[in-house]
């Protein structure tokens, strides 16, 4: 006798109703943001496979090719040392994306921590953190970044000198500087949100059930900050890439031989009058990248905002 088991019902797809899932579903309708996602995906692939895609060694010099305009062999032309601009731009995407993602990650971590602490504990903690934010927002940012970067580049303090042994040290230093100057906006927003959230009943309920402060913050407050964190994190990536470029342009950013879009533009204002294409492409790469992250951030903001129409 054979028994036929009842056919297994096909698993029904359940539409997740979490904030994140809803937002991502809404984001799909945002055309500019979706296009930006494609651009960002292509950029990440370029960065990962730079070695395969780049037609030349980005540091190979060609003395016969100094400032040779774009040609079939060198699609974007050659720079002051005859290096292939296209290859340098392809390799430069690695550093720009690395700087953008790490600064965003660290400044969001720092900003969220500070904001949650200030908003949740209030009192003296809040005063201390808020005053510090106020100071950080009143100092002239760019000159201080220049000073700090200059300090790290030449300081003879043993710890800093040891750090400089690493050829990529200027990348870490830049990430550190931008994190230090980049967390205040998120901290302020998070603080405001926590002030609102911490008086809601569900937080009281959690407390009544015996949850510790740490648990309330980690399990009940931070998940509700998701929208702020994701939107600001995305916008911070573009900001960091622009900041690195500005510092590198002034000669205080990431130092050669590491090639970045920013340091390809150092002295751009002197080169541009005679060799405009040398200055055009790195800046164009920055523009496209930052534009993509800004559009994505804007799309995410709309997607998380139940009031906005998509």
């Amino acid at each position, binding site marked *: 006798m054979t028994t036929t088991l009842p056919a297994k019902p096909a698993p029904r797809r359940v539409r997740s109703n979490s904030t994140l899932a809803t937002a991502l579903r809404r984001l799909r309708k945002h055309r500019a943001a979706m296009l930006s996602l494609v651009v960002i995906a292509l950029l990440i692939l370029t960065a990962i496979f730079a070695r395969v895609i780049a037609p030349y060694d980005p540091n190979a010099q060609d003395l016969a090719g100094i400032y040779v305009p774009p040609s079939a062999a060198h699609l974007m032309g050659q720079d002051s040392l005859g290096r292939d601009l296209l290859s340098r731009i392809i390799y430069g995407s690695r550093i720009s994306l690395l700087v953008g993602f790490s600064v965003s990650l660290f400044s969001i971590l720092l900003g969220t921590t500070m904001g949650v602490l200030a908003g949740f504990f209030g009192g003296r903690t809040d005063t201390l953190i808020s005053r510090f934010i*106020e*100071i950080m*927002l*009143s*100092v*002239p*940012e*760019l*000159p*201080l970044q*220049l*000073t*700090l970067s*200059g*300090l790290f580049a*030449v*300081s*003879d303090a043993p710890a800093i000198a040891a750090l400089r042994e690493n050829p990529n040290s200027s990348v870490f230093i830049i990430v550190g500087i931008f994190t230090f100057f980049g967390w205040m906006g998120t901290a302020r927003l998070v603080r405001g949100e926590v002030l609102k959230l911490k008086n809601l009943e569900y937080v009281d309920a959690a407390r009544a059930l015996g949850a510790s402060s740490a648990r309330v913050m980690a399990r009940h407050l931070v998940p509700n900050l998701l929208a702020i964190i994701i939107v600001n994190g995305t916008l911070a990536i*573009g900001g960091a890439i*622009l900041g690195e*470029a*500005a510092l590198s*342009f*002034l000669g205080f950013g990431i130092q050669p031989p590491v090639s970045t879009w920013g340091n390809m*533009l150092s002295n*751009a*204002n002197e080169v*541009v*009058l005679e060799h*405009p294409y040398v*200055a*055009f492409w*790195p*800046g164009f790469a*920055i*523009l496209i990248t*930052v*534009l993509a992250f*800004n*559009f994505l951030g*804007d799309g995410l903001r709309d997607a998380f905002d139940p009031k906005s*129409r998509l």
Partner: protein
Amino acid sequence: MGTYILRRVLQMIPLLLVISLMIFLLTALQPGDPVDQLTFGNSNITPEDIARLKHAYGLDQPWYVRYFYWLRQAVTGNFGYSQDFNIPALDFVFQQRMPNTLLLTVPALVISTLIAVPLGIFSAIRQYSWMDYVLTFLSFLAFSAPVFWVAAMAMYFFAVFLPTVTAGAVSLPPGGLGSPDLPLDAGFWQTWLDKLHYLLLPLSILMLREIAVTMRFMRANMLEVMTQDFVRTARAKGLTSRVVLYKHALRNAVAPILTLLGLSIPGLFGGAVITETVFSWPGMGRAIFDALVSKDFNVVMVSLMLLALLTVIFQLLTDVAYAYVDPRIRYH
């Protein structure tokens, strides 16, 4: 209101003290000092001379001693001499450089606000129209592009490309404060016209980002106000769209712009560092950059302190102005 302003002014003092300490530390910890810079490569100078010079300038003291010395002098208005220009650092920055920076930043702020506010309102009233999309896209372009790159491209376009194409009829100078061959006896108008010619490019570049930011902010404000109850009430009682939008909604949406202006002052000066460097505009930003490179610490200190002071003053002014514009705000 009087007590509020007084309290805010008193709060500025510790704020500025902490900022000055922070800036001093950052500059004082830099290796090398003005004496090193001065004596570098001079084979006639002995190490004893260098030590004596450093002692004379107090550069052999630890940083906190130097800070308190600097502070004691600074409160009496003595900010030391500029090593590079051999004049008091304050005179150099305040008299020679600040006017040039203000010439750049004040018109930039005023003109960009005048352009951005109407555009933002328009964008909000015609939300999701094609003009709104175009303005949105343009503003995203403006704050996604590296300023110095746009400046360099504009420089090429107006100083090389256009003059070549139009055979010199249309051209803007790539940098500087005025043409070097302007006759010494040039009249008032001629001098200012020449200056304006040189100002046009850096001013426009500095304004780009300002316009974009203010426009987006204005649009967001206007959209928010337009959904509020009092606007619906105004419509319900039969007022025309025109009156509702321009009288009721607009007045409430414009006030927050003041806060934005206050907040954008430091950013504007920061942006001026880059713009001034690109266009060799001899303002404060350029002075800070040059002084940092040549370790002219007195100039760095006095300019950064001036910027910080301007920032806190503008923040206070906008907060006070806000209370005047919006009677719902009361300070206590």
